[in-house]
C-alpha cells in the first residue's frame, strides 16, 4: 500500500512511530548523561503528542487525560528530577563509555527487524498502522533493555527502564486507543513511585559503593565467598 493512500491520521501515526524509534536509537548512542535524559524527555513529549493526536483525531476525550499525564510525568517531571540528581551527584561532566558502539547499533537494528517479525501474526487482522505501532513499541521496549545492558551508570539504567514504559504506552495508545482509565491512572502512579524510589536508590548506591557504576555491584554471586 502506498503511503499516499493512507489517511492523514495514519500518516501522522507512522511519522510519530518513526520519530519515537529514532529517539530510542539516539539514546543508545548517547554517552553523555545530561543529553541522554534530554532525548528521553523528547521521547516522552512525542508520546504525549501521539496520545493527544489520537484523542483528537478519533475523538476519545479520555485520552487527553492520558496525554496530559504522559507529558507531565515523562516529558517534564521525571527528566527534571533525573537532571537535578545528575548535577547534584556531579555526573554531568562524566562520559559513560560505550563499548563497541558499532556493534550495539547493529544489535539495535537487529532488534528492530526482530520486532517486526514477531508482530507479523498481528498484521493479518488489522491495518498497516497497527503493525507498525506494535512493532515499533516492541522495538522501543527491546532497545530500552539493550540500553540497560550496555551501560554501567545507574542513571542510564533508569532512563532505559522508563523508555521501556514509553514503548508500552505507545502500543496501548495506537493499537487499543489507551487502556481503561483506572489502569492508566494506576500505571501512572506506579511510574511516579518508581521514579521516586529510583531517586532514593541513587543515594543508597552511592553511599555503599561511592559511585553510580552498577558494574561494581558484584558482591552477590553463586561463587563461594571467602
Amino acid at each position: 500500500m502506498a503511503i499516499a493512500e493512507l489517511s492523514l491520521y495514519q500518516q501522522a501515526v507512522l511519522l510519530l512511530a518513526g520519530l519515537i524509534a529514532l529517539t530510542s536509537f539516539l539514546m543508545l548512542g548517547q554517552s553523555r548523561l545530561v543529553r541522554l535524559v534530554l532525548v528521553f524527555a523528547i521521547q516522552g513529549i512525542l508520546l504525549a503528542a501521539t496520545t493527544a493526536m489520537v484523542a483528537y483525531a478519533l475523538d476519545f476525550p479520555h485520552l487527553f487525560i492520558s496525554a496530559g499525564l504522559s507529558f507531565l510525568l515523562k516529558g517534564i517531571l521525571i527528566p527534571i528530577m533525573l537532571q537535578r540528581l545528575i548535577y547534584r551527584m556531579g555526573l554531568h561532566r562524566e562520559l559513560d563509555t560505550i563499548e563497541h558502539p558499532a556493534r550495539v547499533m547493529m544489535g539495535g537494528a537487529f532488534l528492530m527487524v526482530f520486532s517486526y517479525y514477531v508482530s507479523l501474526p498481528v498484521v493479518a487482522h488489522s491495518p498497516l498502522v497497527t503493525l507498525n505501532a506494535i512493532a515499533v513499541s516492541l522495538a522501543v521496549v527491546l532497545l530500552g533493555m539493550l540500553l540497560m545492558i550496555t551501560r554501567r551508570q545507574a542513571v542510564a539504567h533508569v532512563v532505559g527502564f522508563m523508555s521501556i514504559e514509553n514503548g508500552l504506552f505507545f502500543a496501548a495508545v495506537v493499537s487499543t486507543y489507551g487502556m481503561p482509565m483506572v489502569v492508566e491512572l494506576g500505571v501512572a502512579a506506579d511510574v511516579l513511585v518508581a521514579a521516586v524510589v529510583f531517586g532514593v536508590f541513587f543515594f543508597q548506591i552511592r553511599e555503599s559503593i561511592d559511585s553510580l557504576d552498577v558494574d561494581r555491584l558484584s558482591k552477590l554471586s553463586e561463587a563461594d565467598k571467602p
Partner: protein
Amino acid sequence: MIAVYLILLIPLAGMVILGLVADSRRAGWINVRCNAWALAASVWLAVDVLIHGPQLSSGQLLYIDSFNVYLVALTAFVGLTTSIFSGPYMAHEQEAGRVNARRLRLYYAMYQGFMLAMYLVLTTNNMGVLWVAMEGATLATVLLVSLYRTPESVEAAWKYFILCGVGIALALFGTVLLYFAAEQKLGIGGNALLWTVLHENAAALEPNIMRLAFVFLLVGYGTKIGLVPLHNWLPDAHSEGPTPMSAILSGLLLNDALYAVVRCKMLVDGSLGTHTAGYLMMGFGLVSFLVAALFLHRQTDIKRLFSYSSIEHMGLMTFAFGIGSPWATFAALFHMTTHSLTKSAIFVTVGHAAQLAGTQRMTKIRGLILTQPAIGWGLLIGTVAIAGFPPFGVFASEFLVLIATMRDYPWLTPLLLIGIGIAFAGLFRHLQTMVYGDIPEGQTAIPANLWPVMIHLALVLWLGLSIPGFLGNWFSQATQLISGASPF
C-alpha cells in the same frame, strides 16, 4: 461483598496509620492487629463464597471465586503469623543496631502496603489492575530489601527492582496485546480487560494474538514467580532483606504471581483450544525445578539455600498447572498451600537461627538444638517437611503431582524423581551440623516466639494426614474452574 472491601480497606488504613506511628513497639502491635482483622474478614468472605458461590462487585472491578478466595485466606493467614514473628524479631534487630526507628516505620507501613498489593492482585477482576498491583508489590518491598543498607542489601534491592521492573514491563505488553485482541471482538470500552468478560468470550478471541500475549505474560509474571532463567533476583532479595520479608515474599508473592499466570492461561486455553500455554508452563517449570535443585548444593548462606528451594517448588507448581489435568491442578493448588505454610515457617525459624548464631553462613551456624531446642527442632522438622517426607503435607502434594505426571506424561516422572532426590540431598547436606554439634563459645538462647512456626508445621502435618473436607471441597471447586473437570 462487604468483606472484600474490608480486606482491601484494612491494609490501606494500616499503611496510613503505620506511616504515622513513630513508636516501633506499638507499630508492631498495630501491624499484628491489622493482619488479624484482615484474616477475620477473609474468613468471612470465604464462608460467604462457600455458601453463595462466585461474586462480582457492583462496578465489576472485584471478582471472587473459589480459586482466589482460598488464596486470599492463605495470604491473610501467613501475613498474620509472619507479623506476629516480625514484632520481636525487628525489635531485636533494632537493639543490635541494624535498623533505626525511622526505617522501622517504613518497614511496618510497607508491610501493610505489600499486603494491600497482594489482596488487590488476588481480588481484582481487571487484568490491568492486576498488573498495577503486581508492580505495586515490587515497589512496596524493594526499599525493604535494602533496609539494612549494607552494600550487599543495596545491590540485592537494585537487582530486584531492575529485573522485576523490566520483567513485569513485558507482562504489561502482554496485557496490552490481550486488550487489543479483546477489543476487536468486544468493542472499545472499559469492559474488554475484565477477566470475567474475557473468560466468557475467550473462544472468540484471535488465537494468534493471544498466543503472543501469553508468551509475554508468562515471561513477565514468571520473573516474579522466580522461574529459571529469570530467577536471579530471588535468592539475593530473600537473603539480604529482613527475614519476615523473606517469609512473605516466598510464601505469598510467588504464589500470587503464579495465580496471575494461571488466570492468563485460563483465557489463552479458551481461545487457542490447544495445549500450547500448558507446554510452555511445563517447560519453564521443569527447568526451574531441576536447575534450582542443583543450585541447592552450591549454597553457603542459609537463606539463599531456602530461597532456591522456593524456586524449586514454584517450578514444580508451574509444571503441574501446565499439565492441566484435573489431578495435576488439584495437586498444584494443594502444593501452593503446603509450600507456602512450610516455607514461611522455615524462614521464621531461619531468622531466629541467624540471630542466634550472629551470621547466615551455614558453616558458622552450630549446635542449635543444644542452645535453644525449639529453634533447632523447628529447623529440622521444617526441612524434613519441605524436602517432601511423609507424613507432612508437602509429601502428599508432591506425590499427587507425581501421580498426575505418570498418568499423562510418564516419561517425565524419572526427571521429577531425580530432581526431588537431588533437592533432598542439597537440603540435608548442611543441616546435620547446624542442628546438632557442639555449642560455639558465647552462643546463648534469644527471646523467640515460635508459635507461628509450630502452628504452621502442625497445619502442614494435618494436611499430610488428611485434607479436611471443606478444604478438599474448595480445592476441587477451584480445580473444576481451572481445568474444567472435577478430580473426583
